[in-house]
């Protein structure tokens, strides 16, 4: 018997097909399950990432890189910045930053509203004969679930409290509508089933909200989102072609399981199918990585910021959950084109967002801020840095030495894609660079939304001292975060020594706390002929406007001299 004779045999009945029945629900469930798995394993992924960064930071160069590596690596560097630089007094710059923040807030709200209103016509197309209450429920559900992605793109200062209040209001509205639908339908035949459906719907909404809240967590989202994109593409690449060809393959797919009782041709067929599945899976993974790569390039070229990209992917996931969840179990009545509905759903909000944003801010390089810090995973310390960098990036780029502590805050899609594809080492500098080449690696122009980049400089053990020195010499505004600094922290002590040796303490504001060993810092400075006295010192506080104003002042003084 030929191994292809299975093609001539009738296919199994629909209920026995692998995925033919309830296709969209299965895809929705698979994507949901996979992302839930990613969210659960995110702390492990983060740990692996951090461990890998630490290992790479410990590498010593034993031979210089060939010219070919530098040429390849130059391809990643960003376009040359225009020469003109943002000018204005600190007060003017703060006002400009505030207006850019407002602009992003307004555009985000408009995009969210468009996404919510789009639920009305889309649900009318997908759900057969929806009632007015069903339509309102779809709109309210979309509004509730899209809240979390939207808030990721808003300024940091007030979003947590407002988000919580908005979620509670949204849950009350959705529950009210679900109850109204349930009451209306209970008056029709088969009403008892509706009560169970009401509880299921509310439980599903809470579950999806919980998942969204987890994957948008500040410390997880940098890693979770790129992995989610890879998994979603992987699932779609495996499931959609299978759904298309399944009914045309006769009984070939029914013998995937191999057993000792199979004939030789069955075994060859099963092995062949396993090979095909594995290759399609590899193709799915490859396409998933390509999708992340495309998104990363969008961010790199400034079409999107890292924050709005996260919001966009989040809205896409909400679209997948809502569309695939709304499609009834009778999948045969739907075209496979329904799978594209979430993408279409995203299109109009993106257009509205860009229209409301308006023209790209007509400005040159901003006022860069160099942050020198004690590597720390303390949540309070990280929250301070996060708040500062989220505000400063409307004024200029934030430059930092990459380290394991930043895995919690600053993993962008490009870095994550590099980690997942075992290429993170390509981001590390193996040897010292001169000032020109080092400066070229940093982006200092804003993206289309008016946000400057957070630039991280990763170094191998044999390169960090020289490169940090160059970076200090290039910077006019330096925040020295010495919270928790003790004599044991040799890296930060080395940086203080560099600042003293080069006489650059007038460009620095030092932020300390009750653990900071100021005496050690003073001794360090005295060794290099300086004293602690002229160093501008502040204690950690929530007065970010005041801190940013002072940083801008010293930056302008440094520029003038």
């Amino acid at each position, binding site marked *: 018997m030929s191994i292809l004779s299975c093609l001539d045999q009738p296919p199994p009945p629909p209920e026995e097909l692998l995925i033919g029945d309830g296709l969209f629900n299965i895809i929705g469930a698979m994507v949901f399950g996979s992302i839930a798995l990613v969210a659960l394993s995110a702390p492990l992924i983060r740990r692996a990432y951090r461990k890998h960064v630490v290992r790479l930071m410990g*590498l010593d160069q034993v031979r210089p890189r060939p010219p*070919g590596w530098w040429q390849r690596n130059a391809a990643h560097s960003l376009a040359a910045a225009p020469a003109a630089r943002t000018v204005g007094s600190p007060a003017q710059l703060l006002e400009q930053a505030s207006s850019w923040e407002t602009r992003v807030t307004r555009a985000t709200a408009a995009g969210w509203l468009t996404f919510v209103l789009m639920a009305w016509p889309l649900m009318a197309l997908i759900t057969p004969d929806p009632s007015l209450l069903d339509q309102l429920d779809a709109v309210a559900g979309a509004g509730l679930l899209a809240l979390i992605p939207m808030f990721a793109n808003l300024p940091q200062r007030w979003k947590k409290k407002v988000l919580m209040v908005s979620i509670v209001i949204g849950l009350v509205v959705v529950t009210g509508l679900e109850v109204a639908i349930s009451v209306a339908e209970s008056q029709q035949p088969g009403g008892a089933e509706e009560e169970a459906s009401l509880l299921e719907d509310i439980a599903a909404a809470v579950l999806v909200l919980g998942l969204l809240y987890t994957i948008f967590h500040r410390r997880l989202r940098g890693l979770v989102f790129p992995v989610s994109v890879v998994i979603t593409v992987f699932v779609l690449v495996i499931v959609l072609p299978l759904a298309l060809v399944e009914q045309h393959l006769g009984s070939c797919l029914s013998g995937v399981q191999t057993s000792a009782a199979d004939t030789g041709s069955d075994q060859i067929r099963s092995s062949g199918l396993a090979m095909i599945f594995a290759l399609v899976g590899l193709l799915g993974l490859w396409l998933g990585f390509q999708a992340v790569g495309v998104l990363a390039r969008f961010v790199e070229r400034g079409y999107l910021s890292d924050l709005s990209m996260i919001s966009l992917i989040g809205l896409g996931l909400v679209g997948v959950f809502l569309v695939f969840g709304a499609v009834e179990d009778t999948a045969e009545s739907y075209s496979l084109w329904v799978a594209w509905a979430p993408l279409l759903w995203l299109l109009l909000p993106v257009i509205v967002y860009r229209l409301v944003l308006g023209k790209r801010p007509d400005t040159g390089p901003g006022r860069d801020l160099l942050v020198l810090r004690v590597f720390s995973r303390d949540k309070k310390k990280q929250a301070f840095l996060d708040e500062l960098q989220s505000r400063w990036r409307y004024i200029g780029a934030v430059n930092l030495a990459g380290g394991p502590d930043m895995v919690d805050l600053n993993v962008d899609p490009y870095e994550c894609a590099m980690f997942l594809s075992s290429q993170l080492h390509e981001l590390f500098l193996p040897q010292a660079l001169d000032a020109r080449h080092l400066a070229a690696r940093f982006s200092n122009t804003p993206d289309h939304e008016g946000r400057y980049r957070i630039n991280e400089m990763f170094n191998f053990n044999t390169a960090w001292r020289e490169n940090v020195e160059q970076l200090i010499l290039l910077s006019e505004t330096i925040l020295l975060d010495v919270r928790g600094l003790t004599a044991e922290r040799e890296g930060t002590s080395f940086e203080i020594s560099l600042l003293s040796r080069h006489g650059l303490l007038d460009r620095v504001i030092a932020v300390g706390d009750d653990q900071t060993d100021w005496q050690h810092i003073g001794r360090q400075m005295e060794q290099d002929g300086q004293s602690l006295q002229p160093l501008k010192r502040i204690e950690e506080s929530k007065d970010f406007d005041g801190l940013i104003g002072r940083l801008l002042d010293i930056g302008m003084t440094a520029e003038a001299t």
Partner: protein
Amino acid sequence: MSRLSLYVNDRGQCVMHYSGFSILAGIALFIWALHRRLYLFSVVALALEITYGALVVQLSDNVQLILFAVQFVVLGSVANRIHLYLLNRRGWLLTDQERAAGSEAT
């Protein structure tokens, strides 16, 4: 712990190499090969693993378990050596290496 090294070729491509035992290679050689960017090796390993699996499935459970243990130990032990052999044979040069003492923190 395995030691991490980086190798570079003339075209500027850079790959990681770990010395020592590889758990991933012991479990799924083709995924390990993909991770090391040995694409042809990965496809060959996949074909071999599937063929091997189709043959082994006909044996008793105990024999299958023993064979899996042998496969895990053998593949896990030799995979990184094969990788190093292939890198050297293709002219890749060692450029960066992990120190035994570990990294410095600031």
